[in-house]
């Protein structure tokens, strides 16, 4: 009986989309509510955002590597629209255009699906669920610290403990590159090599630069500036430019606060973290957790975005990708989703008149019982 329907159905689904049901839904909702609850406790308010907006508006918040992955379509008046590839841009737009009378900082959290035309694989889906937050209006390090601590607390609240937040700072790398005076193409190649910690390529890149041998050695060693607090101190002992030093001092402050709270084991540094340089303006971080091979989420400071929407406001935030966090939560065994089977009563439709059945069922459900109307088997 059941199978006979299959012939008329289209079992195909587009690559990269997903649906959830059964226990999986309960688990996702539970994780979401723990995260949302934690963010609320820290003074963040929820914002619900539109699924699509003008393509142009999204382009402000996306690097060139994402803008060609946007699902776009036409509005009736011919304007280009896009399915949201990102939520931060929508928050920034809303704050800059609708919340200008609010006291600062404006602290908002959000959750929902984003859509990107990613090549399938490498842990990427075309539709994925993010939950994240933005703190807008404070340019000081304390706002960075609050956001990083909250990222730590979110994972701890989920019972996840084997994770690291790898901190970097855009100012550190930019300070070094600006001194080198590289043409844009060379600067991109240099950045790419640093991003992949590709020392062999860096050796070639620095070969013909007109700088001292010590400076060359430092540039080749740049990818190795990753690890604990000692990395900051080591970098401070060799880097001279003011911009990089300021960045290092900021990272040092963040670590000191983490340490005073006993959270230093969750913090690590990667000064060669150079992703998203066109977008981020200060600290950047990636969140990693065992045994997940991909980042669970990430964030940073982006002081330039809101001005694109007419309000020059500094901002810092992060987001988690739900599908990458969830397996860790299950590993951590913290998700006790109660099973309701014991409260379930089945009332057979064969036993009496329909009026009688539904009168009874109505009364029992009003008493708070979980009633299932079905056929006795």
């Amino acid at each position: 009986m059941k199978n006979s329907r299959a012939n008329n159905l289209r079992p195909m689904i587009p690559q990269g989309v997903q649906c959830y049901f059964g226990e999986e839904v309960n688990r996702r909702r539970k994780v979401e509510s723990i995260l949302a609850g934690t963010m609320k406790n820290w003074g963040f308010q929820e914002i619900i955002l539109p699924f699509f907006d003008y393509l142009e508006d999204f382009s402000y918040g996306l690097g060139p590597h994402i803008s060609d992955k946007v699902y776009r379509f036409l509005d009736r008046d011919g304007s280009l629209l896009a399915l949201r590839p990102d939520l931060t841009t929508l928050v920034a737009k809303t704050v800059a255009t609708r919340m200008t009378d609010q006291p600062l900082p404006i602290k908002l959290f959000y959750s929902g699906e984003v859509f990107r035309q990613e090549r399938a694989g490498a842990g990427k889906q075309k539709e994925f669920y993010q939950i994240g937050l933005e703190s807008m209006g404070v340019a000081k390090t304390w706002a960075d610290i609050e956001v990083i601590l909250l990222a730590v607390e979110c994972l701890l609240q989920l019972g996840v403990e084997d994770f690291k937040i790898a901190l970097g700072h855009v100012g550190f790398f930019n300070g070094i590159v600006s001194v080198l005076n590289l043409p844009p193409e060379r600067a991109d190649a240099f950045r790419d090599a640093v991003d992949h910690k590709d020392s062999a390529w860096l050796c070639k890149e620095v070969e013909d630069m007109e700088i001292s041998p010590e400076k060359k050695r430092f540039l080749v060693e740049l990818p190795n500036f990753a690890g604990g607090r000692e990395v900051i101190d080591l970098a401070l002992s060799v880097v001279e430019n003011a911009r990089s030093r300021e960045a290092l001092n900021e990272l040092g402050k963040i670590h000191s606060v983490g340490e005073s709270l006993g959270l230093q084991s969750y913090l690590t540094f990667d000064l060669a973290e150079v992703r998203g340089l066109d977008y981020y303006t200060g600290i950047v971080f990636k969140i990693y957790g065992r045994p997940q091979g991909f980042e669970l989420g990430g964030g940073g400071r982006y002081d330039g975005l809101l001005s694109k929407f007419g309000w020059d406001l500094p901002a810092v935030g992060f987001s988690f990708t739900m599908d990458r966090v969830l397996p860790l939560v299950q590993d951590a065994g913290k998700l006790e989703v109660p099973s309701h089977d014991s409260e379930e009563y089945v009332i057979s439709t064969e036993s009496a008149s329909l009026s009688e059945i539904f009168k009874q069922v109505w009364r029992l459900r009003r008493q708070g019982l979980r009633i299932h109307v079905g056929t006795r088997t």
Partner: protein
Amino acid sequence: MFTMALSKGRLLDKTVEFLARAGIDVPEDILSSRRLIAPDATGSYQFLLVKPMDLPTYVEYGVAAAGICGRDVLLEVSPDLHQPLDLKFGRCRLVLAGKAGDTVEKHNLLSTTRVATKYPRVAERFFRSRGLPAEVIYLSGSVELAPNLGLAETIVDLVETGRTLAENGLVALEEIAESSARVVINRASFHIQYAEVQEFLGKLRKALE
């Protein structure tokens, strides 16, 4: 336990030899291909034996924290991985090859040229960067036959000594990239297993000196 992926084939013997010099002994079971996954005698390393083109995938997904593969593979697969060390062995070149006297431009004056390769993305990028239209034909082996059979005018392939090319009446027309064995590290493992990664890289660096 630190899981490491090794490439089957061309690089395997040299990789094992190099690791031994670094004080890391790959178990016999793996070398004889009796098992595809096995721990070393000390229990601190676990090895996976995989096809070269698959290796970056294992490391990118974090199934293995690290791996050793040729740069040719990295250029083709473009995985999102750290590539901290050039191990300098397994040197060879990715080249465009064809019949002697050909040039890249020759076939493209009027029409799209055909190129056969195990490296479709490398080939695609190479021709596109020249502004030349090319039809890339993916083959999983015996690529050198293609020009003689008329399947393609040229090939993009890995060349170590050039003997295979010569035996098939082909010459290297242009070098696309140099290749040698590289260490790759998963981005998450780099931080999560920081101490193990540093110890591992330290051993390899020492062996390189």
